[in-house]
């Protein structure tokens, strides 16, 4: 008799040194359904899926796939059992081509030992055209956009004949248009008989797409509900264990003098390609300028030029009227520019340093933390204790290594550090990426507080809702240019999403810039 459940997990337990990631978790996914798993950061969703896929051995528990017991299995066993997974962090090898990535581990062969490159290419082309993916099998991954990378991941899964698909936070990096395209694909796959597990933080998507939802918190399952019978608020409560403010309260801006003015800014990338072109910007004291755009359209480079990390090729950056183009990062910082970098672990913190050491990073060379080249440890500690108290950092210990803090607390360390010392300009890049609802609340409120205290804020985010709620004005970047600017309130997510694809042509303040990225479906939409 055929099993009614595609996936059955029973009593899954997994402990890590400081945290119980999965605590006796049960999960049932019915055949042919789209099953969403939601939960805060660190709730244990990815861990559960990695256990299912055989990447991580559980400490205890039992797994059945379509009725067959999987015991101490490895990914190869899971793949053979019909499981496919699109990971939260894409599992693609940048230096290989699309076709190579797809066939890796299950290569078509000639003469028994050589890769049949032609066959590989053909298979990829076939799968790709079947779902309208438009993938070039010979393109290298490093040249693909995130959206295309995700399609490669899906092709990888389909190539292996998966009947059960796991997608871990697939929409985090996509534009609204790309998200709806993905949903079309997922529904088509469901029609074709596939079972889909879908992990997300976006409750709208759950309501829109899923059949059923499993909610996790602190490594445990806190609820399993039919999507049609629930609301976002209910889900949020199950996730966090309390009521959550889903919108930020914001007073209207009272803008003052121009703090930052950017004129005709251009920059070139590694291979001499233009990554920024003719960018004009202006931010006044007491206002938030949001910069929206799909990853890789020049936002990162813009922030780097503004903070002195990258050389400008042309144009100028004026801070309070003074030309700061080409100054070193330290000089720019010393002029009152604070920066929350987009990748907290890569650029924001020295994970092996203590919290106290991290809290002076960037100002360590100035009084009172340093005098005549010698560190003043008491001043550094005192400063740390103060910030820890003010920002409710946990654990409240200045001497623990920053790397041992949770993601949310790591971000709080950066925020506390950068907001301390009354910056005149705050450049915040993806300040809430990968941070859970509680920490998001904190960061958002802190940002607005800075604004209300008279700082100019440049907010770069891939999260449209974040841009919409926090910004007073919104600039959209595409292909290294600013293609449109809006007053907040006069624009909706659809329009923004369209502008982000470079396909939007309306509006007085907008400038269109071709349709390099636009797909026919999107322009038609």
């Amino acid at each position, binding site marked *: *008799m*055929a*099993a*009614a*459940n595609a996936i*059955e997990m029973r009593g899954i*337990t997994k*402990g*890590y*040194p400081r*945290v*119980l990631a999965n*605590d*006796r*978790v*049960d999960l*049932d996914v*019915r055949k042919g359904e789209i099953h969403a798993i939601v939960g805060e950061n660190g709730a244990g969703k990815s861990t559960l899926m990695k256990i299912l896929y055989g990447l991580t051995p559980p*400490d205890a528990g039992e797994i*059945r796939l379509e*009725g067959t017991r999987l015991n101490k299995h490895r990914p190869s066993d899971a793949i053979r059992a019909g499981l496919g997974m699109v990971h939260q962090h894409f599992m693609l090898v940048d230096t290989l081509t699309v076709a190579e990535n797809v066939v890796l581990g299950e290569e078509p062969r000639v003469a028994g030992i050589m890769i049949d490159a032609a066959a590989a290419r053909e298979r990829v082309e076939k799968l790709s055209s079947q779902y309208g993916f438009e993938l070039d099998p010979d393109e290298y991954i490093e040249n693909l956009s995130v959206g295309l990378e995700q399609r490669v991941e899906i092709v990888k899964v389909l190539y292996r004949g998966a009947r059960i698909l796991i997608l871990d936070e697939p929409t985090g990096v996509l534009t609204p248009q790309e998200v709806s395209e993905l949903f079309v694909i997922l529904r088509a796959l469901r029609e074709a008989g596939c079972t889909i597990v879908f992990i997300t933080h976006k409750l709208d998507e759950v309501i829109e797409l899923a059949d*059923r939802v499993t909610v996790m*918190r*602190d*490594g*445990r*399952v*806190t*609820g*399993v*509900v*039919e999507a049609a019978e629930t609301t976002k608020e209910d889900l949020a409560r199950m996730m966090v264990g309390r009521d959550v403010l889903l919108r930020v309260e914001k007073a209207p801006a009272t803008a003052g003098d121009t703090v930052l003015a950017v004129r005709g800014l251009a920059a070139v990338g590694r291979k001499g390609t233009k990554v920024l072109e003719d960018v004009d910007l202006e931010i006044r004291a007491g206002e938030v300028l949001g910069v929206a755009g799909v990853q890789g359209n020049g936002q990162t480079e813009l922030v780097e030029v503004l*903070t*002195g*990390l990258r050389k400008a090729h042309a144009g100028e950056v004026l801070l309070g009227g003074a030309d700061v183009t080409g100054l*070193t*990062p*330290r*000089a720019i*910082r*010393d002029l009152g520019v604070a*920066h929350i*970098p987009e990748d907290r672990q*890569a*650029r*924001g*913190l*020295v*994970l*092996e*340093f203590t919290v106290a050491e991290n809290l002076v*990073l*960037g100002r*360590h*060379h100035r009084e009172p933390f*340093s005098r005549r*080249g*010698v*560190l003043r*440890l008491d001043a550094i500690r005192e400063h740390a204790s103060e910030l820890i108290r003010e920002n409710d950092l946990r654990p409240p210990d200045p001497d623990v290594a920053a790397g041992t803090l949770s993601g949310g607390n790591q971000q709080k360390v950066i925020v506390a550090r950068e907001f301390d010392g009354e910056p005149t300009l705050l450049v915040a890049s993806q300040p809430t990426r990968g941070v859970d609802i509680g920490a998001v609340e904190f960061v958002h409120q802190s940002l607005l507080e800075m604004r209300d205290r008279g700082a100019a804020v440049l907010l770069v985010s891939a999260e449209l809702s974040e841009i919409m709620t926090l910004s007073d004005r919104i600039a959209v970047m595409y292909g290294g240019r600013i293609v449109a600017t809006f007053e907040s309130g006069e624009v909706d997510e659809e329009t923004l999403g369209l502008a982000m694809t470079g396909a939007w042509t309306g509006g007085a303040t907008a400038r269109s810039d071709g349709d390099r990225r636009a797909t026919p479906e999107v322009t038609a939409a």
Partner: protein
Amino acid sequence: MKRLARFTSVLSPVAAVAAAFLVGGLVVLAIGESPLRIYGILFRGAFGSVDGVGLVLFNACPLIFAGLAVAFAFRAGLFNIGGEGQLYIGSFLCAWAGLSVSSLTPWLAIPLLVVAAAAGGALWASIPGFLKARFGVHEVINTIMMNFIAIGLTSYLVVNVFKEAGQMTPQTPKILASAHLPRLAGAARALGIPLPDANPLNASILIALAAVGLAWFILYRTTLGYEIRAVGLNAAAAENAGINVRRTLVLAMLLSGAFAGLVATNEVMGFRHRFLDNFSGGIGFMGIAVALLGKNTPVGVLLAALLFGVLNTGALEVDVFTDVPRELILVLQAITIILVVVGNEVLTRRLEQRVRPAEATGADGNADAGAATGEAA
């Protein structure tokens, strides 16, 4: 947790050394010798007399400098394999200074030569440092290349330009007498320690101890040290924080080379009083092992250098008085390092217990799990 970590970092090298001696003992046994006798001779050589202890310190001295050089660069994320070349250039410059000045009081001569030694090492190290910072060329290759170049260069100078007249030995004449570092035998006797006059232990060991303190101070108490560590741990974050990464890399390399150059204080100023072609024979490379064993901390380097000093001193005793060759000691040193790194990983993992359900707090929340689960077939 912190105490546990400290415990681990002390315990693992100690356990590794013990295990290495065990393995070495088996090797000795395998060639039909008694491990007890061999180890007895080894430790008698190192600890059996004041002379032996003096030799241990004398042998440890250059390793302290060489180990500090590697450890210091390591803190900035640089792997300085070039200690050997740097110590040759430092020693040569030191000797050259000692030959160029005709008369000077010790109060000026000694500092002058010490500075020359450090400057020579720093100069040589700054080249790969600069190439790394400016062109991104990996320092490992360049430091290796520069070892060969330094050896060739000093060899040329000592054979063709600075050779002591009428001698076969490729060495310079003796340096200015007032620049010699005094041997410690006299001072030790004044303290009631019967260190023989012939014992080569000299004031360089005091410079080495000061260097350990200096390295510690720079790394943990100065702004520069903070920046060096930040760059070594996360260059991108350091850059983001306004630290000039390139400058920091060059400075770290410079200081690292200076430590290597200070080997000259023992070899040139304290012991030989001249530059001898090829005198080192691998001190720079042993410095790598010392730094690794000492976990790249100044105090760790000191301890590891002392351990190697014991082994080298004992090795000579074994070499002279038994049929077991000194290579056994090399084997022992290598096994120690391997066991230290392996042991460290194993112990750390052992000690980091995973959280189990029983220990988890507040075991509620599973109540509504399974509310909509279907029956397995």
